[in-house]
């Protein structure tokens, strides 16, 4: 793993040779219509896609934080509502389950000569997506606040809690910790991180039977509860963007959010004193584990099955042009960890590289994982509000999952 990551990041400033292959940019026929998540890094990426597509291209992009909920319905239609979708290792599985994205081997052979091999996401020997960035959630802290109180940068969640309690006791901040605990996908993701950090497995091996109601699950929930007690009381309504606002308002000294948040947290807008004081740290371990309690993600491009070959080619050309643009990566080195050839990692790539080198688990890509994530999204709230025990909450998660998985034909 370590070698792979080193190879991945210290990639060679290669001379772009389009040996016998076509330049992807400058699309003149076919229409491009992309569905993508909404955050700053994607905006930067999309600007590059648009400029690669060229002025003559019929170019459209829809950014939505609800992209996961829209994608299956939108790509199931024939012709599909969108010709391309930006996917992650989480959101690709529902599309694969229904055969909604097409193999890209032909298009990669034609236009992808400038891609790194590890950008090609192969499933059962076929390329289904081309990754362009790696992402992970990790710790962020305010250096001056930790220094003033003589707190070392926490490397475990137990230390995070001790640090937050100290900041609170010193009267510096009322709610020093923040995480995206919004009920729904975000809250589910916090549990996924914490449970994997405790070494948990979501399913009984080799089956779709749930496996979260155990000691590790309880420990993970109790840790999340302790963190929420040091967070803004409105934590159940705060997603990543709301947490970033809290950070930029100076209300928070420690938070655990996405590496790609750097694109907006470290830009020239907002309070520059807070920006200058913002530091990134590796994701903490928990409960004596060795793996950081986070998940590794790649973000990539995928092309709809139910779109014409002409539109598919046009969309792929524009997207792959950006996904192999060394300039894009090196002009925005801190926007994220690019997987693009010739990229020299910026100052903010450290925590993601650290997570990868310490054997962090990528987000699970089981076909039934989204149902588990859905069950986690809704059934953990009552525990966090103190209305039920951790065991009961986890039993509810399993029961809700079983009902849904039965209906979907997985059990």
């Amino acid at each position: 793993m370590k070698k792979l990551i080193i190879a991945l990041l210290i990639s060679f400033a290669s001379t772009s040779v389009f040996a016998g292959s076509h330049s992807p940019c400058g699309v003149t026929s076919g229409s491009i219509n992309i569905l993508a998540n909404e955050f700053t890094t994607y905006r930067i990426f999309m600007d590059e896609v648009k400029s690669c597509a060229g002025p003559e291209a019929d170019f459209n992009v829809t950014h939505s934080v609800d992209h996961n909920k829209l994608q299956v319905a939108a790509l199931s239609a024939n012709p599909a509502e969108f010709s391309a979708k930006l996917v992650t290792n989480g959101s690709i599985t529902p599309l694969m389950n229904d055969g909604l994205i097409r193999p890209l081997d032909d298009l990669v052979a034609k236009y992808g000569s400038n891609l790194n091999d590890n950008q090609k996401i192969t499933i059962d020997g076929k390329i289904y997506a081309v990754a362009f960035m790696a992402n992970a959630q990790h710790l962020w802290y305010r250096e001056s606040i930790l220094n003033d109180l003589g707190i070392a940068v926490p490397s475990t969640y137990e230390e995070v809690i001790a640090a937050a309690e100290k900041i609170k006791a010193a009267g510096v901040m009322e709610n020093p910790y923040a995480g995206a605990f919004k009920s729904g996908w975000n809250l589910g993701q916090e549990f996924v991180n914490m449970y994997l950090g405790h070494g948990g497995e979501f399913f009984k091996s080799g089956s779709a039977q749930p496996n979260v109601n155990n000691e590790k699950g309880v420990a993970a929930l109790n840790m999340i509860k302790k963190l929420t007690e040091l967070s803004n009381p409105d934590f159940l309504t705060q997603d990543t963007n709301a947490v970033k606002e809290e950070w930029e308002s100076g209300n928070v000294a420690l938070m655990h959010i996405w590496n790609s948040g750097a694109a907006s947290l470290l830009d020239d807008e907002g309070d520059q004193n807070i920006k200058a004081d913002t530091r990134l740290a590796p994701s903490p371990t928990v409960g004596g584990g060795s793996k950081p309690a986070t998940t590794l993600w790649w973000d990539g491009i995928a092309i709809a099955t139910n779109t014409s070959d002409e539109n598919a080619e046009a969309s792929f050309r524009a997207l792959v042009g950006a996904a192999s643009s060394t300039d894009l990566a090196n002009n925005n080195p801190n926007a994220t960890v690019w997987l693009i050839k010739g990229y020299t990692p910026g100052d903010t790539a450290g925590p993601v590289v650290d997570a990868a080198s310490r054997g962090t688990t990528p987000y699970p890509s089981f076909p039934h994982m989204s149902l588990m994530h859905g069950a986690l999204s809704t059934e953990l709230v009552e525990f966090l509000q103190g209305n039920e025990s951790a065991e009961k909450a986890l039993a509810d998660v399993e029961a809700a999952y079983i009902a849904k998985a039965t209906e979907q034909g997985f059990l």
Partner: protein
Amino acid sequence: MPHRTFIWFILPTALAMILFIGLPIVSSFFQSLHIENEQVLMEVENCDPFGCTTNVRVDVEATEKIEAENPLGRFNGFGTYTDRNHLAFDEIREAWDNKTSIGEFKDIVLNLPFYKALLFTLTFCFAVTPPVIVLGFIVALSVNTLAKNLKGLIVFGTILPMIVTPLIGSLVLFWMIDSQGIIGASIQILFDDPNLSLKASSNLTWITLIIYGIWHNTPFAFVVFYAALQTVPQDPLEAAYIDGATRFERVRFIVIPHLYPVATFIMLICLMDNFRVFEPIIGFSAEGVAQSLSWMIYQDLRNENKMLFGSAGATSMLTILGIAFLLTPVLIRTWKEFKTER
């Protein structure tokens, strides 16, 4: 009216109702009896930037073949209706058999998703409807006494909450009750508690949603009452005035009896409207603590990566039953009044 004329008169409406209301309900019901076909899984090797792993995926071809043979999915009868995410018969039976106290049984039942949603939906219905009728009536009475040239403007201002799209209205209020918003900050100062947050506790969230519901629905009651007030006969009012009745007595003994059927109508519509409460839950990001039946349907169709049509269909059918159940007493009453009036 001769039957023949009546049939021709009602035919277009009846056809439209069958087409746009009847058939969709039948189709949802049919869908709710089915679940997805079995997913065929296969082991494959996946490679991504973090390395290669052996993983399972859905065998799309094999699954599509089953799908083509059985496009509706597997027949499940009322299985979806009785599963844990709906009526949860097994769970309730188990809870009843193992209960140590009624309180414990109640807690277990109200923790099941359907009953949790039902509890909020009914609470919302019954907490919002009466204040809406009373407030709407009071506002209508007040506006009715205003000078003519002021009326138009005031009526417009009063119905504004109804004109604002529920989602937008609730979002605006959501920002206002934020601890840094004007209402949230004022409440903190008023109660001298810097940690008071309307979004944090489930009780306060419920109260916020109910107050929002009253705010949003009152204009409807007001408009109907206001229109009805214009039909109150002036003669008895004048007679009562001459006889020395106070304003309260005139309202109590002449206006209210006259508006009684209108109040029943408003109650009917309000109960129906509030039973399908949905937008404020999204607007106030209250999914965590307040779920309604409509929100459950949305959750099945939108929040999952794959739409759970069967589950959504079952919840829809149960919602229709719920509304029918709720409205029966009111309808029976209206029917009786109708008969006696004859």
